[in-house]
């Protein structure tokens, strides 16, 4: 990831050097975009990728037609064009998938020695590395995220996640001191549209490593890489029924949650749906992992390395168009540096390239769906109506597809809806603060608790902050970093359970003392 980041920042650093010189040498604090280097188009080729016209469900080791006989169209959000038809799975398909998963668990996978399970999962990881470019292109075509992110972050991390957990499969006895871990059985897993393949990896890898079988439901708007993963898992020779992938809409997900044959539900998505799931499984023996919404505080102190902090702010909120549950969407700047930080941030925002996600220079790609575009626009209207001052750099947006300019809201306060509610788009609400106590109180005064960021060069202050912030992931002098070995998950209404690292094993085992 650091390598990926370097590729991102290097040309930009050059640019800003040029800019600063110009600014200090002469006039304005608002240099026009002519001041920056123009980039020639650098589109990634799609030639290498073949998509079928129609994709079926993957149940019991076979690609099968949906019970309803219906297919829906999945689009490229950057152009609006239909790229494939996807099986619309329903309750009956879910039932078949759960039955297949149960059979696989009882007859084979549940009894397979960890060493053998590990080898299957290692295979998945290696094959994903082999096909990384194909996966990256499809991820960008279907989800709208910049190819640079799919290529350097999503796909490598997904493969690494399988590789990491594969190695745990025969070492589980070392993970839980003085307790014998036992697999749960069949896990139902529901994943979101913002990191389609990566979330599938986060769900599948630990579940398989701990000896469970799985029914996975991808998000309706971004099913393609999960279906490609089904092909890969098939090619890898994973026994039939161990992984089942059922595409479809909300009702299919609800049938999975409510199916009596599952022992575990793992969900990543919005807090309202997470609450629905928690309620639906109340009183049943089903275990749950919920990775829900967030509204992270991103805190900049006056002694922070300001230029790096500005990069961190940009990465925090504009990474993946802000479709990130842990996005640094509430910025808190210490009052005495607020003007400087905001000026630099605005300048940096002017250099962001919004446009064709397939272009290797693009920083901000397409908004994932029309529905999400509408939601973001709605919040931008709310922000203006609430009296916050909006800033968007001048930049041309493509004529087709769903795009949103990077957006700042200045002079916001705790009670603003754009400060309290998760927008899930490239929209940053800025507040200022004077004292450490004040910013801790403001940062924690929210129902969410997924992540937070702190920028200061003073070590003791960092640890004071990271200890007091009620959030599951705290980035100090960095932001939006992920790794298979690093546990991820929230406090409070951001959910419970961890994904990644040793702690990511707990949600998939029961401990016998």
């Amino acid at each position: 990831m650091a390598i990926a980041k370097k590729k991102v920042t290097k040309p930009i650093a050059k640019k800003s050097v040029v800019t600063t010189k110009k600014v200090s040498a002469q006039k304005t604090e608002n240099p026009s975009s002519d001041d920056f280097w123009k980039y020639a188009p650098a589109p990634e080729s799609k030639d290498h990728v073949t998509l079928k016209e129609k994709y079926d469900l993957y149940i019991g080791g076979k690609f099968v037609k949906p019970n309803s006989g219906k297919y829906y169209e999945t689009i490229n959000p950057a152009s609006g064009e239909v790229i494939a038809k996807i099986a619309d799975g329903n309750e009956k398909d879910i039932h078949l998938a759960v039955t297949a998963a149960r059979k696989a668990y009882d007859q084979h996978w549940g009894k397979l020695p960890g060493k053998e399970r590990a080898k299957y999962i290692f295979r998945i990881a290696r094959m994903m590395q082999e096909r990384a470019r194909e996966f990256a292109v499809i991820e960008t075509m279907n989800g709208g995220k910049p190819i640079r992110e799919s290529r350097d972050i999503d796909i490598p991390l997904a493969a690494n996640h399988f590789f990491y957990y594969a190695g745990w499969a025969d070492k589980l006895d070392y993970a839980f001191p003085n307790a014998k871990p036992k697999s749960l059985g069949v896990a139902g897993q529901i994943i979101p549209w913002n990191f389609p393949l990566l979330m599938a990896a986060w769900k599948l890898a630990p579940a398989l490593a701990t000896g469970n079988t799985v029914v996975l439901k991808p998000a309706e708007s971004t099913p393609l890489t999960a279906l490609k993963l089904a092909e890969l898992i098939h090619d890898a020779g994973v026994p039939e029924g161990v992984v089942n992938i059922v595409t479809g809409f909300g009702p299919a997900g609800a049938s999975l949650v409510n199916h009596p044959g599952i022992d575990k539900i793992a969900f990543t998505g919005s807090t309202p749906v997470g609450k629905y799931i928690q309620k639906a499984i109340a009183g049943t023996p089903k275990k749950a992992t919920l990775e829900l919404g967030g509204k992270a505080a991103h805190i900049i102190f006056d002694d922070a390395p300001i230029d790096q902090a500005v990069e961190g702010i940009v990465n925090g909120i504009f990474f993946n168009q802000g479709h990130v549950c842990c996005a640094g969407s509430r910025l808190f700047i210490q009052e005495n540096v607020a003007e400087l930080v905001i000026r630099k941030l605005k300048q940096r925002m002017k250099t962001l390239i919004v446009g064709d996600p397939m272009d290797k220079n693009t920083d901000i790609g397409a908004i994932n769906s029309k529905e999400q575009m509408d939601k973001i626009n709605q919040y931008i209207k709310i922000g203006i109506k609430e009296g916050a001052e909006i800033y968007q750099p001048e930049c041309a947006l493509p004529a087709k597809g769903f795009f949103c300019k990077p957006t700042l809201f200045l002079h916001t306060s705790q009670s603003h809806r754009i400060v309290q509610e998760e927008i899930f788009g490239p929209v940053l609400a800025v507040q200022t603060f004077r004292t450490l106590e004040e910013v801790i109180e403001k940062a924690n005064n929210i129902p969410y608790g997924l992540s937070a960021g702190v920028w200061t060069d003073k070590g003791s202050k960092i640890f004071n902050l990271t200890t007091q912030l009620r959030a599951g992931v705290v980035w100090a002098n960095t932001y939006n970093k992920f790794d298979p070995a690093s546990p991820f998950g929230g406090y409070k209404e951001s959910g419970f359970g961890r994904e990644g690292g040793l702690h990511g094993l707990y949600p998939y085992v029961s401990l016998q003392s």
Partner: protein
Amino acid sequence: MARLSIQKTYKIFIGGQFPRTESGRFYPVYNSGKELLANMCLSSRKDFRNAVVAARKAFGGWSSKSAFNRGQILYRIAEMMEGRKHQFIAEIMSQGSTQKQAEQEVQTAIDRCVYYCGWCDKYQQLFSAVNPVASAHFNFSVPEPTGVVSIIAPENTSLLGLVSVILPVIAGGNVCVVLASESKPLCSITLAEVLATSDLPGGVVNVLTGQLKELHTHMASHMDVNAVVYARENRTEIKAMAELCSLNVKRFFHWNHDWKLSSSENPYLILDLQEIKTTWHPIEKIGASGSGY
């Protein structure tokens, strides 16, 4: 002439104070010979809310005490319990146990306190990790307490079940509001008197007596409670409470152990009420990948 003994008025325990219930209500508890043992407080929803306020207020102080200090305070609780041993035994016997059973229960309860005292500064090392991330970052994960916990103590014992569910919660730096056994409530208030004289800050443990059927929905729906521990066996209550927990994504745990067994004490109960926090920080100029800002 025989001396007339002084009977104790059993109160409830909120924020380190001993009020009677704000509702003015009571319920009588009898021994097997139908003699009145006590007029216990029939705690109200308002008592519960007051207790949550006290608990939240105590959370910052308790969770930021040094782990070593928390251990010392738990040990102090054991010391105070030992001193009150005969009172606990008498209360348990008055509620229907034999002398032998009562002695066994009190001894196990005190020993359990010492057991969890020792965990206060050790579970962190067991459940933490330094994570070998691929980028140039120092990355570690540590457990932190979840916050305010509603506890429904077991019904069938007066003391052992109660301490067994309180201890793992507070050993981990959480604060709690606990509803004692309805039919065997006496030891809960005596335990509160122990806690009040054990250097445990007021509000860390709050003890209510009363009826679960009246309080369970409030204990699960309160928006400033972070988790619920339920240690009884009523499926209807479990479902109702677990459903209400979804209002603010409370963590819900059904602890159904035989608390007489030593296998029922383990650090995984502490872990239930912990959140794992992962912290990242760049390492300057490691290897080829450069700084990790």
